[in-house]
């Protein structure tokens, strides 16, 4: 009951999703759409549970007065503000959109742009070319970066003006992306895909059961 039923459910849903995708029959397609809608209904509950766990963590921080516990209130302020406005009035509400445009989007972009600084220091450590492979990575990254910005072509056209090729930096970047980079990516994609398929079959057939967790 505690392990067998979930295994049967996993098998049934897995098999149904495989077969309905191969069958163009209207019943099959209706079933496919229905199961997709079921997954879309079940998934938000997982998010709500995750939020509950987040709230529990911060409540514990406040209760135990751990370091910087005062900031935990800000997490609640953020969640409550967005939920109180967004749930009843919808994401198209003006106030909700204001918070999205003027609070979330700028912070999102700034957080990611912060990585530009750290990636630069990480690159310095990683790019101290000591081996052939590291040199290859360094040279490729440099060409891709220079080919991405107009100054790359400007430098190329100025320094390497004797070459018959104009705008070579962006051209070299594009060639690398379309050829050696793409072939490496294809190799990775093919390998990962074979792994995904074999793992999915193992899950559906109940051979892989780690998602059930421990205990009975």
């Amino acid at each position: 009951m505690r392990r067998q039923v979930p295994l049967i459910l996993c098998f049934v849903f897995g098999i149904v999703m495989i077969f309905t995708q191969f069958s163009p029959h209207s019943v099959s397609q209706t079933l496919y759409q229905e199961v997709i809608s079921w997954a879309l209904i079940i998934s938000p509950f997982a998010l709500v549970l995750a939020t509950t766990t987040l709230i529990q963590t911060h409540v514990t921080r406040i209760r135990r007065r751990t370091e910087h516990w005062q900031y935990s209130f800000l997490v609640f302020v953020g969640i409550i503000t967005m939920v109180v406005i967004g749930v009843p009035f919808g994401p198209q509400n003006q106030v909700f959109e204001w918070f999205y445009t003027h609070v979330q989007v700028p912070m999102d972009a700034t957080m990611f742009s912060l990585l530009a600084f750290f990636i630069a220091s990480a690159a310095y450590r990683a790019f101290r070319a000591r081996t052939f492979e590291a040199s290859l990575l360094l040279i490729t990254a440099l060409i891709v970066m220079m080919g991405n910005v107009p100054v790359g072509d400007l430098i190329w056209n100025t320094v390497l003006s004797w070459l018959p090729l104009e705008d070579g930096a962006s051209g070299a970047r594009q060639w690398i992306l379309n050829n050696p980079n793409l072939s490496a990516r294809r190799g990775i994609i093919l390998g990962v895909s074979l792994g995904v398929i074999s793992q999915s079959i193992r899950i559906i057939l109940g051979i892989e059961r780690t998602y059930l967790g421990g205990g009975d």
Partner: protein
Amino acid sequence: MELFGIWVAALLTLCIYSFLYQDNPFYRFAEHLYVGISVGYGIVLSIHQGLIPFAFKPFWAAVTGESLIGLVKLIPIGVGLLFFARLSPGHTWLIRYPIAILIGFGSGVAIPNVLRANIFEQTRGTIEPFAAMHAGTLSGWGVFEAVLMVVGVVCTLTYFFFSVEHRGPVKWLSKVGIAFLMIGFGSAFGNTVMGRVALLIQRADFLLGDWLNLIS
């Protein structure tokens, strides 16, 4: 309201950039607010784009007698509510039901889609130029690129092939595979750096243009 929004966004941006100096109360303020706002935004979207259209509306239609088929939605709602069993120590095992359904669903969706998009399409893309080569429509440079692509894919896959010991020809093939992988990682790194730098430029543009009006 718009001007106030620009000020809020600018101050939050500066709060996050203050981390470049060191961890400080301004950064912690923005960081916690960011977590709260993002989680709240996610909850609102999942409710309005998942629960309401796929569960609440059909269920309400069944309650009002419009379409009784909506009663079926009670099943995924009930299954979704089982996520909260995690909060009750004696009933934690019930969470396996929604997880098993979602994992079975995901595995079932993955197999045909991964086969189609990642294996068949990628393999087709790799060998397709040879048809043009056979027809005699491919230039000398195109032939070189087609061969390079196949060599790259085969060597990259060889590197990930651990069923045989990497000795002799396999060792050399996998070494060539590493070279292709390094070019791939270098390209990914270069593109990531440029993406982050673009975000940094965008934030600087916002601070100097929209906020301080120093640049137009």
